[in-house]
């Protein structure tokens, strides 16, 4: 046999007109533009309701944000994987875009919920669903109280994303929305326990001081404990989420 007959030469290569991330984002948008639109409308409706009627409806947006990693998976999870692959999108790029898409949806929902809290006028006795008031007795909630609340549920939502988001990348099944809600409640309870623990630790130095029992020191320790808790919760959530994202990409 003539050796030239079996010489191996590569077939002609083709280039794609767009980059993989652009294709991945276009596909994510095509899959989820209806959900994004729904989230946007819900955010506006909740803000309106919280101004004029019921402040507690903001919780709907928070729960939806916690569920977002599950809701974006879709029922035909395996089909989506195959579609992405057939469009020349690597599994790693699919994870990157899905991660950003979930974040984007969560930011939209969380911004709506935060806005509904911050934009409302509160009377001296008004509390909202997750208030950790730093001032004892009937006093209006301060901006710090609101920011602490917001920081804590934002951290809880990020923790849920970190804990459940990986299942969205596994073939065969996606995470269940009920688990996301259960995890969110669990993480919120852990944050409450953390807050109590930090408050107890911060209060220790004041216990034996002459001003230990007065209202000023109580407010001071509460405020400090809140800030430390929010910093711990948010910091750990960001770190864990970034670490998990790297792991999802590596194991995609």
């Amino acid at each position, binding site marked *: 046999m003539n050796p030239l007959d079996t010489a191996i030469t590569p*077939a002609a290569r*083709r*280039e794609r007109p767009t980059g993989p991330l652009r294709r991945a984002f276009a596909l994510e948008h095509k899959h989820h533009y209806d959900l994004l639109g729904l989230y946007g409308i819900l955010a506006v409706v909740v803000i309106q309701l919280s101004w004029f009627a019921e402040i507690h409806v903001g919780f709907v947006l928070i729960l939806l944000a916690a569920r977002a990693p599950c809701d974006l998976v879709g029922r035909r999870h395996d089909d989506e994987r195959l579609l992405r*692959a057939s469009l*020349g999108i*690597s599994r*790693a790029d699919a994870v990157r875009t899905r991660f950003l898409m979930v974040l984007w949806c969560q930011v939209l929902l969380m911004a709506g919920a935060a806005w509904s809290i911050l934009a409302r006028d509160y009377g001296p006795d008004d509390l909202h669903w997750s208030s950790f008031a730093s001032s004892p007795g009937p006093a209006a909630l301060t901006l710090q109280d609101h920011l602490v609340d917001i920081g804590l549920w934002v951290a809880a939502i990020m923790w849920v994303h970190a804990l459940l988001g990986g299942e969205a990348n596994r073939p065969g099944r996606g995470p269940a929305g009920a688990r996301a809600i259960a995890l969110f409640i669990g993480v919120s309870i852990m944050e409450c326990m953390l807050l109590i623990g930090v408050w107890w630790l911060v209060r220790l130095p004041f216990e034996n001081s002459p001003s230990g029992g007065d209202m000023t020191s109580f407010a001071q320790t509460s405020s400090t404990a809140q800030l430390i808790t929010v910093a711990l919760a948010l910091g750990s959530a960001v770190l864990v989420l970034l670490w998990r994202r790297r792991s999802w*990409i590596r194991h995609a």
Partner: protein
Amino acid sequence: MITDLAPAIAVQDLSVHLPSQRRFGGAPHHVLRGIDVTVPSGQVTALVGSNGAGKTTLLRTLSGAIRPSAGSVTVLGDPIGGPEDALPAGVGVVPDQPFQPDHWSADDMVRILRKMEHRVDAAGIGRRLRRAGIDPGTAIKKLSAGQRTRLVLSVVLGAAPSLLLLDEPFARLDPLAREDVLDELRRHQAEGEDRAILLSTHELGSLERFVDHVVLLHEGKVLLEGPLLDLADQHLVATIPIDPLPPMRLLRGHRRTGDVLDALVATEDAVFLPGNACLRRATIQDVLTFTLREAAR
């Protein structure tokens, strides 16, 4: 001659273990077990096997949708398998059921295709859709199962892919549509000498004239691989009375009917059979059926 082209697909020692569907404690499912497969350029390769043999998993792994547990996969010269590996341009994938969302239409699919490939023959796609009786604006969910397959195939062929991966393309087609699709594929194949097709199917009988190369999968392993004509030429079907018992070690699969055995034998072993054996040329369907029967035994 076609052999001067690199293989369209080269699979070496590929294993795929899918995670258990049970939430806790389920063992992984070993779908593919260390297989080697070569899909030559410029040829039509059929991936044959019974249900659960691993055909669809292999096609999904080749497209990059499933992560291989071990081994290497090369598609059109590019590695596929790592998290960052993506299917190169010029590969068309047609699944057994469309993986596109139900509300998509041919127009949506062409729009996406334009983002993937420089050269899209929209007129050709329209022509194929008209032939299949599909309106380009109709959503996938409103089409019959056969029309869905033809829709996806029509769009994919619009990019003139160098490699086509087809999962059970004929399973949902009526005989006329099947002929139409075969003609489309023949035309596509004839338009470029480097074009390769890998299709999975349960039975090869009616595709004998279309297919050049065969890979037989059984329980995640490759039982047979080679050019279709060679595999058929290398075997004979012998009809042998069971009294006296023929030398069973020569038989590569057999089926008993009354007092006779129908058996597959290698052509070179035919001289060792009893003198009362009746011999005929084996078809590729005979080779596959008897081999699978033997493996199942």
